[in-house]
């Protein structure tokens, strides 16, 4: 199979897979979904590898990520932390009324830790994307014991 054929086969596999999944679910034949999924996966792999082996990629996607990284990150942050924020709000409301205060406090603590973790990761990622600085490597203590070679 040459590479052009591989790409065409891959694309056809994806389309056939999607059609099978949609039609099967519409008809209530859930058994067919897995076959559609297999077709989609194989089609995606064939198409991806076909293009990968053949074509030179565009760098516009790379540039887009570099230029809009901060915007993407802020949007992602809002979406990602939403459930944890809701959990915190709910916990605050529940603490006054519920009889399971101890459990709520434990859950609150876990949620807080997770919120901190998520925010920390996103902060780090954004900071890194904006401009990570290459730090010079320090040599070991042993090197200071040696005589300068030069």
């Amino acid at each position, binding site marked *: 199979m040459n590479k052009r054929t591989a790409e065409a086969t891959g694309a056809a596999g994806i389309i056939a897979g999607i059609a099978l999944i*949609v039609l099967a679910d519409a008809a209530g034949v859930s058994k067919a979904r897995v076959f559609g999924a297999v077709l989609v996966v194989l089609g995606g792999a064939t198409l991806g590898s076909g293009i990968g082996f053949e074509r030179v990629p565009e760098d516009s996607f790379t540039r887009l*990520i570099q230029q809009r990284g901060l915007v993407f990150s802020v949007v992602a942050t809002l979406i990602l932390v939403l459930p944890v924020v809701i959990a915190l709000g709910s916990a605050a*409301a529940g603490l006054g009324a*519920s009889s399971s205060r101890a459990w709520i406090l434990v*859950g609150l603590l876990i949620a807080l830790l997770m919120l901190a973790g998520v925010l920390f990761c996103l902060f*780090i990622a954004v900071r*890194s*994307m904006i*401009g990570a600085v290459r730090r010079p490597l320090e040599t070991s203590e*042993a090197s200071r014991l040696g005589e300068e070679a030069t």
Partner: protein
Amino acid sequence: MIPTREILWNISLAGRVAIYVLLALPVGFLAYGLARRIRTWQRGQPVHRFDHLGSRIWGTITKSILHGRIVRRGNIYGGVMHVNLFWGFVLLFIGTIIVMVQDDIAGPFFGINFYSGNFYLGYKLVMNVAGLALIVGVLMAFYKRLVTGSPWKETSADDLILLGFLLVLCVQGFMLQALRLSVTRDPWSAWSFVSSPMAFTLRSAPSPWVKVIHQATWWSHFGLTFVFLAYVAYSKMIHGFTSLANVFFRRLAPKGRLDSIANIDEAETFGLGKLEDFSWQQLLSADACMHCGRCLEFCPTFNTGKPLHPRDVILEIAGFMADSGDIFSGEVGEGQNSARFRSGAGPDRELIGGVVSQAEIWDCTTCGACMEMCPVAIEHVPILVGMRQNLVLERSEFPREVTPVFTNLERVGSPWQYPPAQRADWTKKLDQPVREMADVAAAGEEVEILFFVGCLGSFDPRNQRTVAALARILQAASINFAILGKEETCNGDPAKRIGNEYLAQMMAQQTIETLNAYSIKKIVTACPHCFNTIKNEYPQLGGHYDVIHHSELIPQLLKEGRIRIDPHSDFAAGEVTFHDPCYLARYNGITEDPREVLQQLPGLQLKEMRRSHKHTFCCGGGGGRMFMEETRGTRINRTRLAEAQETGAGTLAAACPFCMTMFDDAVQGAEAGDSMRVLDIAEMVVGAMIVEGIGDG
């Protein structure tokens, strides 16, 4: 009530369809990235790595999957961190597959619901443990990278983004579970011990709200998982594939062997001057690097402030491959060192000079510390020597100090200008004569063992004392041995490791012809470089011998009672530290024999240096470095001497003439002769040995 849960609870039909329909995207991106990489590996030279499949599979399981090369002495924190990351991730992935199998195969086709009862409870417990392990692993990694740090660790955005991905995905997973449990209130929710407490916090929220949040979280989790999968092939996460592949396709030859260039007379190119000169497996290995920096821990050049950092050489090559193969990978940002973080400085560079500097290439001592430590079995030394071969044989570019070495090797068969006739002069110091093979053969006799003296032992006055000591031991043990004398030439090790493969093969062939002419079967040598070359490299050229290093032979003789130690001798008494020569300990795994010898010497207290055994620190003399000026950083031999002095020992014991020479220089340079003596183990044994009728002449 049987414990179970509704798969894809609260998710609409659109979600069920979308999860499979959109699967084409991450799979496509992943396949695309892998294909780009495979395309670059295909540029390499063919090499057969599908032999010994059993060993390869077993090695991959033990070294990588079971973390045999990752959880190691000195890397317990890093090892445990990686175990958490790896197994947490793998178990969660398997867990996802289990759910898919239940929902799409077992249920619809066979009417089986295995996702219930005790299996379900166990599954929930394991998934919570796995998620927690992954979070712990990520936090340990953050702590290591951002708080404690280490001299050999540096952090790129890629590292942090990946850790962020893993943490956020885990948190989302637990949140999804908590949101569901807060509505369904499963009586068995305690088995989900991480998310269950969070479910309590959500109980006060109105259920419709929670369901909406659950849906939003599910979609973002699903989207983020797909983005993560798509990102894998363009980040260092690719090592999940490449490191396993590299360990599987690793070289199975003896560690100390540098492969010879086959049919060198007909070769048109030499060494590694461009990516196409590498083998495909070497190119794969560059992509297997996970940037951990373990290779730097014992590296003599990194630890003495030289430009060569083995990891960076590999990343420079990987970055160049990415540029040449049009692979978008690595750093998102500005101002990065392109090679280090793989983003593009462009493919229009020369490998040597443009990607890897000559300083990096020539600073290597070939000690193998990088290869010993590398968790993914990358072989740095053959790559650096390959680039040396290209410089020497194609461009005639090498440090000027090496010119006389090559000339002398060609003319007189040793790196120095001594005539071959002087090779056996050291034997004149002995009372008993040492026979040369020519005389033995002329008399129609054979010997039990050939003593391959080596060039330093033959000509260097300091090392002559070592070989004389070994000869005395052999004589005391009544071993029938001989030397080659003026017929001995350099075995080719320095030429080979400096990159002059042509000359190295010439020297090796000459030695093999001589050894075969005398039907030599067994060889002893006091030089780990001779030992390694004859044992591990000569078989490639048709020389097959039983080679033994004197540090292996001496304990054997002691055990057999063929030599005896005077229990009242105080020659070796006191605190002694032993320096493991790289070519003995790391390349050939000989670490205990020399210590066994030392421990039998009366009054000797062995003090270990902080870097010892296979984790020894180079003396700076290997890889032809003994013949080159050390112009960058601090002196390696001084650094090692300082480590020996840290132990408080008054004697530095060695078992290698290169190390002896380097340490003698270091002791003189540091004016430490009064506080530290440098002795070979053979000298120490002779000094304490009961001698019957044998002495100095």
